[in-house]
């Protein structure tokens, strides 16, 4: 029996009630924050100064900072150009598992290049890269974690998508990846230097793209971050209000902005203020806007679109990214999400059967009775029984 349903069912109603109560409470706080938002952003210059003041004194920050656009407005998409190129990349990975007979890691990246206006099918590229042994086992013999491999995957997505750009591609060119644009620190990354190096590489890649006038964006579906709430906390903290204890419950930007952005429109552009002790100096400066990909008034669906800061300084480029991503998400209209990213994911996803095939292929390369291959753990073997 896979589950004791009777036992789950016993607590199901109670759980549903708890979840509803939690949502009501969140909406209540969001309502209060909305009033505060109106007040705080009515003078964006003052709010920016408050944030800059805090930036100097605090070492850990992750919040939104308004830029030149009015945060109280919802912005419609401009008309799409007839011809443009959209490159989307997504990756998946095999994380080394000590329970298997052989530990190995693999990164699989799918890239779709769509030349809109050509009428031609998109070009597909799939890069499957078996990781070197030194990438999966460090000098201290620690096996690479899920986050370590994800970092390598994120880096490969960015370098490979860059490699696809040729002078023949129709301009404007937009590259899109799934998830945040910057490679942020993951909690479980063992080699902090490697993470910092990756962040520096992302910065350098963006510098190249900027020189060539190539746009890039990170698309985050159903985002959970609360950068606006954190921004309002600063407003409360630095502002004139009597000192209050900050509410520990975080309200997502999605809940806060849900009713403010009209279907198909976007929020104002904010800058991400992300500060950690180990941040390298040369790090990508990122801005973002929320995009309501829904076409229905009473059912907003916000995605966060992250863009390099230099793009945020040119409103027509922000508008172009807005228009391209909204149009691409409308292709899958009942579940709006960029079609090209979905296809890149479809290309890249590694299934269990493929994992086992690669494992067998590798095992076949070892001499018979080789000690390095060892055996699967008994636990893993028994899990595989049907």
């Amino acid at each position, binding site marked *: 029996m896979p589950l004791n349903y009777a036992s789950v069912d016993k607590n199901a109603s109670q759980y549903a009630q708890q979840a509803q109560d939690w949502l009501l409470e969140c909406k209540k706080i969001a309502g209060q924050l909305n009033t505060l938002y109106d007040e705080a952003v009515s003078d964006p210059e003052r709010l920016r100064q408050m944030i800059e003041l805090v930036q100097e004194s605090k070492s850990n920050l992750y919040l939104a900072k308004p830029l030149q656009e009015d945060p109280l407005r919802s912005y419609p998409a401009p008309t799409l150009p007839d011809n443009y190129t959209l490159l989307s990349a997504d990756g998946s990975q095999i994380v080394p598992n000590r329970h298997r007979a052989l530990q190995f890691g693999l990164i699989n990246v799918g890239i779709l290049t769509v030349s809109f206006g050509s009428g*031609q099918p*998109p070009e597909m590229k799939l890069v499957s890269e078996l990781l070197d042994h030194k990438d999966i086992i460090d000098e201290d013999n620690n096996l690479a974690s899920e986050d370590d491999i994800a970092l390598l995957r994120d880096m490969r997505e960015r370098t490979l998508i860059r490699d696809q750009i040729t002078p023949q591609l129709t301009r404007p060119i937009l590259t899109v990846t799934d998830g945040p644009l910057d490679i942020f620190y993951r909690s479980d990354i063992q080699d902090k230097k490697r993470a910092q190096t990756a962040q520096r590489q992302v910065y350098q890649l963006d510098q190249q793209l900027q020189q060539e006038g190539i746009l890039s964006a990170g698309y985050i579906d159903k985002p959970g971050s609360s950068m606006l709430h954190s921004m309002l906390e600063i407003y409360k903290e630095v502002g004139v209000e009597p000192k209050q204890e900050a509410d520990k419950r975080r309200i997502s930007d999605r809940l806060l902005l849900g009713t403010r952005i009209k279907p198909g429109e976007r929020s104002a552009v904010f800058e991400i203020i992300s500060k950690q002790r180990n941040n390298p100096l040369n790090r990508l400066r990122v801005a973002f806007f929320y995009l309501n990909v829904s076409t229905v008034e009473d059912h907003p669906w916000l995605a966060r679109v992250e863009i390099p800061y230099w793009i945020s300084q040119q409103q027509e480029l922000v508008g172009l990214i807005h228009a391209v991503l909204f149009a691409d998400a409308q292709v899958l*209209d*009942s579940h709006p999400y960029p079609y090209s990213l979905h296809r890149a994911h479809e290309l890249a996803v590694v299934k269990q059967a493929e994992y086992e095939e690669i494992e067998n292929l590798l095992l076949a390369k070892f001499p018979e009775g080789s000690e390095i291959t060892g055996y699967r753990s008994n636990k893993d073997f028994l899990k595989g029984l049907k």
Partner: protein
Amino acid sequence: MNEEQTSIPIGKLMRAENSQFVAGCRVRELETPALGALVKVTLEDQSQIYGLITNILINDDSLVRQLVSGVSIPTEYTADNRYNRNLPVEIHVLTVGYAQNGQISHRLPPRPPLSLDVLHLCNSNELCHFTSLNEQAYLRHILRLLDQPVEELLAAHLRQAKAAHEDASDPTWYPLACQKLITLLRDDYQRLTTVLDVLTELERE
């Protein structure tokens, strides 16, 4: 140039049994196969299995179903689903005979073709040769089909074969084929009437 070289590869075998088989092809390769066309598979021992295309099936998947409900799909994405995605078009084939040591038989082959064997479209010479042997005995295979529009399949096949024979200066083939069908269906008046109806339509073309 031998016949194998002039016939066109149109797909690869997915599954098979003695009486029928299914091949898969990509949409790009779909321009040549047509309902009722004579096709063949050459086995490793150089024997050949002949069949008629009885159905061409365009598969879907959950993404295609999702796209169908969309308001508008860019041309590039329609092309992506047709030409890039791994959704083979299925070509269903009814086995109508085989050739061994150069001898063509209109009986079922001793064994079916194997998966990934290449399906070829027969050229006009092969079509004329195969259909004129054994007093068109292969037509009985079409008439044993159930749950399929047999009359439409007959019409499609006879139309192609009639044209090939007429091009080869053989105007007698088509009346003989009609005679054969009347003989095979002499005890099934209802079906015979429908088939004659189709043949009449064909002659009016």
